[in-house]
């Protein structure tokens, strides 16, 4: 089925991304929103599959690094995408879709974290056993090369240090370092001010710097 142009879909032009062009996700989201507005729900759902495929891996990386549990990350990402589709009529195309999605993903992850905290009354942190399991499950090529570069001991130190960060610092650090978002994007996604984001990031990096300095 030929895709309709955005003009035909009757939607506004999606917001421009960092490179001055709307991101593929923003374009796709605007198209799906137009389809839903016209009542073409089945077509919209099919197109939404493409949007999921576009963002899914990135979302799982962020959710997994934040939640440190594959099942929780899976659930959080599912919840986030379902919420996106259900509330797509509220999406403002003048803002980057990626930021809106990150916000929903962060909220879904926080919800999952709260649910887990209620169940376990403790926030999961990577244990020695967890680290060992993770090393075994990593693909032989790329991951082991990265691990060699970082060094197993140092990886464990950094992982523990990140896991021990306060929630907000960990969230900001994860979005900044794992998802490579700018402080402005993180501010939009989390609802914090850009200055607060910078402060959290500075404190997180200071702690990590201290740990690395101690073990240098």
């Amino acid at each position: 089925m030929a895709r309709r142009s955005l003009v035909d879909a009757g939607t506004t032009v999606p917001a421009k991304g960092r490179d001055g062009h709307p991101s593929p996700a923003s374009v796709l989201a605007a198209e799906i929103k137009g389809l839903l507005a016209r009542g073409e729900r089945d077509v919209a759902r099919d197109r939404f599959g493409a949007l999921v495929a576009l963002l899914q891996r990135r979302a799982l990386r962020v959710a997994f690094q934040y939640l440190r549990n594959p099942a929780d990350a899976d659930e959080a990402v599912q919840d986030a995408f379902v919420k996106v589709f259900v509330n797509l009529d509220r999406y403002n195309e003048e803002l980057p879709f990626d930021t809106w999605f990150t916000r929903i993903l962060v909220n879904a992850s926080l919800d999952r974290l709260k649910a887990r905290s209620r169940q376990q009354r403790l926030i999961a942190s990577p244990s020695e056993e967890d680290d060992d399991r993770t090393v075994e499950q990593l693909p032989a090529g790329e991951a082991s090369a990265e691990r060699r570069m970082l060094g197993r001991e140092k990886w464990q130190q950094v992982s523990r240090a990140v896991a021990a960060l306060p929630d907000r610092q960990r969230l900001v650090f994860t979005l900044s370092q794992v998802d490579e978002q700018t402080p402005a994007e993180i501010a939009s996604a989390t609802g914090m001010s850009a200055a607060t984001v910078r402060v959290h990031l500075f404190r997180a990096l200071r702690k990590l710097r201290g740990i690395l300095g101690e073990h240098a």
Partner: protein
Amino acid sequence: MTGREGTDATLSATLDAYRAAAHAEADAHFDDRALEAQRQRILQRIEQAGQRARVLPFPSTSGPVRPTAGVSRRWISAAAAAGLLIGLFTGQLLHVIPGDNWVNPDARRPVALAPARTGFVPAVANAPADAENALLDAIDVAVTSRGVSELRALHDLTFAYEPR
């Protein structure tokens, strides 16, 4: 290179390596097959969310509604009303028919348990006798009233000494 610059360079390199390792770690948990399965689950949940909620009949009414429940409820109401009427009628009947509990109409007059206070101060010699008479009257009235069985024993004791 100062110690601070060295630490910064180390931190920067560490963070780059951390990012790559973190990506690889997450990707190891979610391979392409897991991603496809997750995508299908998401689309499935969206499809379910789009369907109108099915309302289950509760309680289930597979057959015609039997009228027994309504009839029994009516019988209970009728029995309760009849019981109330019978109770009221019996209560009225007990007042009408004289029996052991019949009360002397004189006893129904309100009785001052204490002597009324007036401006008149009685003579000192008559005061104990008046007070005693008033007390005995009050006891008499109370004993003859219904439902004061506790005072009957007192009445039996004091009856012989009643001045009347």
